[in-house]
């Protein structure tokens, strides 16, 4: 009968440790952890709710409602597949509230470097892509004075 105490001691220790583990776990475990897998399910909703900055190509008709000229010019041009925001930067906020900070427009002095980022001759670019040699192709005149950026093909 005396020997049973060996068992009860071990059992008591086991219950105590397990209980402590469960209590601590319930205290530190985030409440949505494990609902979908070994992660916090709430994190998915938090990431989903992050703000977005680019209005996207789907929003171009909305840009076009206010910027008819550029929208119409670009629609049928060789730049038709380039989103407005590729050149003008993220404008979701502007499309919501045009009165806010003025969108970026490449300055006259920037425009050459800007066009050449895509169009400078480069052996790494796919050969089908239209490029020009910056030193040979009208180096002293801003590109935009000949090629309107929204309908560049002459």
């Amino acid at each position, binding site marked *: 009968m005396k020997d049973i105490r060996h068992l009860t001691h071990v059992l008591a220790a086991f219950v105590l440790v397990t209980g402590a583990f469960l209590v601590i776990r319930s205290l530190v475990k985030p409440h949505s952890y494990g609902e979908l897998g070994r*992660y916090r399910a709430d994190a998915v909703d938090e990431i989903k709710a992050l703000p977005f900055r680019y209005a996207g190509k789907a929003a171009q008709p909305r840009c076009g409602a206010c910027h008819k000229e550029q929208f119409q010019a670009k629609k049928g041009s060789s730049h038709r597949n380039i989103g407005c*925001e590729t050149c003008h930067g993220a404008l979701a906020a502007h499309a919501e509230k045009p009165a806010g900070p003025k969108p970026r427009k490449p300055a006259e002095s920037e425009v050459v470097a800007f066009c050449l980022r895509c169009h400078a001759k480069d052996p790494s670019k796919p050969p089908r892509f239209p490029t020009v040699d910056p030193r040979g192709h009208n180096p002293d005149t801003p590109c935009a004075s000949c090629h309107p950026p929204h309908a560049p093909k002459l």
Partner: protein
Amino acid sequence: MRTLSRRLFLKVSASAAATLALSKLSTALAWAEGFYREPPWKRKKPYWGFGVDIEKCIGCGRCADACKTENDVPREPFFFRTWVERYAVYKDGQVDVDSPNGGIDGYPALQDPSALAKSFFVPKLCNGCENSPCVQVCPVGATFKTEDGVVLVDKEYCIGCRYCIQACPYGTRYFHPVLKVADKCSMCYHRLKRGLDTACVEVCPTGARLCGDLSDPGSGISKFRENNKVQALKVHMGTEPKLVYKGMDKEVR
């Protein structure tokens, strides 16, 4: 009448059970194998994938730039969720790879274009591995794969141990210097869920990048995978990337 001894009874039932189990085992195995081999997007809807057409990339770096804007990635040239590498393969077999500031500010001229065999740009981003090493090594469950196949980082829960950065075979993770957590391409999960394309796809001028729903056979990405010869990076690592490339050279790592 012969009575069934306990020993005989146990023997007979055990062998009957074993026979039954063996015959079922093969069907069970076949089912499990089919389940394992079948891509998850046959079962789950939607399921996001990504494609890159190397033959269309002009290396303008607008994607890397837009990604930083959209996702508050620090501007310093060490932190990227996506970047564009330039590969230069020379006739003597030498291969140079560079990506100054991720390609955002353009590339310096190649030293000797006449010795060049071929050269091309390769945009890099999270490979969306089905078997992602980064998810496996995370000790706290801060990196995980969502039900729709995107690998995300829970920045509230990340303890900043950097194991995942070590584990990613594609080097697509970095340590966010301000938030002090690991960060990576989220495939613009917040945009996908609103029905928008990722920021990098939106700004790509040539359509070299595309994202979409693999579970929809009519989506751009499904067509891209179906109609082109596509390849993934480092397939030998068994990570099963959902990012595929068209026109990829063997030198691309």
